């Protein structure tokens, strides 16, 4: 019925093609913000720089816009993403750091799904009564907490009592090769369980804070769609078959409610990535979030090339996450035709 594997390929293919204009727009917008809209950028991007460096910078910005854009575009696509002020090239730095951020984001997503979705189910089940209120206060507090506040509180007040580390991916440099740069995965691949446990320990607080702050998205969406689904007749049918309440909720109702929850994944990715900027810096996590923090001048050493690159990379990440969410939705909802 329009859902064969061949159709799926077309479905995914069409979505990929629809990506391209957005990607192009992203590149253009990044250019506009960093080059066109810039007001006297040079002293801010190169503080304490020699006059000759400043002059170079000024010259670059005084060039006509199409020239600037051509330079920018070819550099971006050519992989020549420039260097930081100290001379370390941007592209390799981002490439090595990106998996760490991916790991952090995935861990946070996992926590959000495992904790947030059942919380949403409970809230819907007891809508209007105290479990609902409790859940709402919980996720609204997360929403209202600025990222750095949450991170700092976790570092200062939670780490010690819970015995959790607060910086880096491992306690000591790992003795095994790191093919994927995902700390837990690498340790497991090398069969080194103590290091894997250590990696998980290091992951708990940063991913936990990230998840806590963004939990509301998943929980609220689950609650709302469960509230829509629970009064429907098929839930009653499931109860009348003699299934227990848990089975009815999680196997029947949630399966329908989740369809809409996955659409939220795209927005979630954006928020999670935004959160990594501060969290990685506070927890000294070696990912591109920290790289973004430093490139934007958070530690007093801004990096123009790095900033552009990191902004584009983040945007690509969000676009990809949206794509995955879209495809997931098409798969999960049996009424969607794969055209």
């Amino acid at each position, binding site marked *: 019925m329009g859902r064969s594997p061949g159709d799926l390929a077309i479905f995914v293919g069409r979505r990929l093609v629809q990506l391209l204009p*957005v990607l192009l*727009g*992203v590149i*253009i*917008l*990044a250019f506009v*913000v*960093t080059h066109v*809209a810039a*007001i*006297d*950028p040079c002293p*801010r991007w190169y503080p304490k720089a020699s006059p000759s460096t400043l002059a170079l910078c000024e010259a670059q910005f005084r060039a006509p816009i199409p020239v600037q854009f051509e330079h920018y575009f070819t550099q971006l696509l050519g992989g020549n993403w420039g260097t930081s002020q100290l001379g370390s090239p941007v592209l390799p730095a981002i490439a090595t750091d990106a998996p760490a951020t991916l790991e952090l984001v995935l861990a946070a997503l996992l926590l959000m799904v495992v904790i947030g979705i059942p919380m949403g189910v409970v809230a819907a089940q007891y*809508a*209007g009564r105290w479990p609902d*209120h409790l859940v*709402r*206060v919980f996720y*609204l507090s997360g*929403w*209202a*907490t*600025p990222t*750095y*506040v949450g991170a*700092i509180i976790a570092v*200062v007040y939670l780490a010690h009592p819970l015995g959790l580390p607060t910086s880096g991916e491992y306690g000591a440099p790992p003795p095994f090769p790191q093919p994927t740069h995902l700390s837990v995965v690498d340790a497991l691949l090398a069969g080194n369980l103590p290091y894997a446990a250590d990696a998980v320990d290091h992951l708990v607080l940063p991913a936990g804070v990230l998840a806590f702050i963004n939990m*509301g*998205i998943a929980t*609220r969406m689950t609650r*709302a769609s469960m*509230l*829509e689904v*629970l*009064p*429907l*007749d098929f839930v009653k049918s499931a109860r009348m078959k003699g299934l227990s309440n848990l089975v009815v909720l999680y196997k029947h109702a949630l399966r329908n409610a989740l369809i809409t929850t996955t*659409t*939220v994944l795209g*927005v979630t990715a*954006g928020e999670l*990535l*935004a959160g990594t*900027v*501060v969290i990685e*810096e506070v927890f000294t996590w070696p990912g591109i979030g920290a790289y*973004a*923090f430093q490139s*934007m*001048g*958070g530690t007093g050493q801004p990096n123009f090339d790095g*900033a552009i690159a990191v*902004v584009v990379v983040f*945007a690509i990440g*969000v676009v990809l996450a949206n794509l995955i*969410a879209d495809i997931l*939705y098409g798969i999960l*909802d049996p*009424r*969607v035709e794969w055209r």
Partner: protein
Amino acid sequence: MADPEHTSPESPARPRTRPWVSVARALRGFYRVLRANVLSFVGFVLVVAIVTVAIVVVLAPHLLVPYGATQETGVYSGPPTLLRWPPSFAHPFGTDGASLDLYSEILLALPLDLGIALAIAGFALLAGGSLGLIAGFFDRPGSVGGYTSAFILRTTDVFLAFPSLLLGLAIVAALGPGLWQVMVAVLLTWWPYYVRLVRGEVLAVKHLPYVTAARAAGVSERRILLRHVLRNVLEPVVVYFTLDIGTVLVTFSTIAFVIPGVVSYPRPPEWGSMLSFFNLNYPISQYWWEVLFPSLAIFVTALAFSLLGDGLRDVLDPRTRRALVESVAAPNPPPEAPELAGTAAANPSEGASMPEGS
């Protein structure tokens, strides 16, 4: 024989209700909505308290701000030993790095932060909302309206592809430091959400039977847009606006924190810049009050608006409203009420049309 008193009234031709009657009715409905949900009521009370304090601080600072006179001049003429004192009876929140009383600073920053959040959210609503209305209402494929809508949507998609914080940081980096610059930065990251939201609502309403009926009856397009579509769109938009005030505040202060010096310190007083001034190089436990109290201020304000907005959302968002009709509804009980028959099935599988989160 038949007793007209005890039969439900047929609906007569409805006379034109006076505007104040509808306002009174709306307020009564609003009050009932608030009462239905404990959390939204708490949020409402908090919001009212916060706004009241803000107004008082602006109009009559001497009532609430203990060290107002000194703070306003920005020139501190007291002993330098007041630098970074922990909380004491004289200074309940301690003093900060500029030797200013933290409690007063926080209170003075309240109207500014609140105003910033309201302004940003308000402008985002106006700009994004108008674009969303256009993109939704005049969206006919192949026409000028159609192309405009497509263009608006594509641009919105592009903006939405950037995580809000990052785009804000990049814009601030481009525009330079300063309060206005940061406000513009956050505004530019915020308007796309409203485009999506409003457009989604307009699309949902545009094809409702009663809109078609109005068209068939010869009502002009403009009147349809203003009276019917707008009224339906307004409810979820108000909810998101309320929620956004808190989120905008959090984002704004995060930018102020990340880029040191982007908002000047100590004038004007702003919670994010207070935190940023205390940069990460200091051990936090040593000067904990400098971190705790501004953070708490941001947290409480954002939480208040979020509580209110989320509580409102249950009732005003048309999707969740139907499901919770029991507790807030008019006296008629729902036992035979037609179920949500087809809501789950009738939603076209278009993917997300409304944004979540910020």
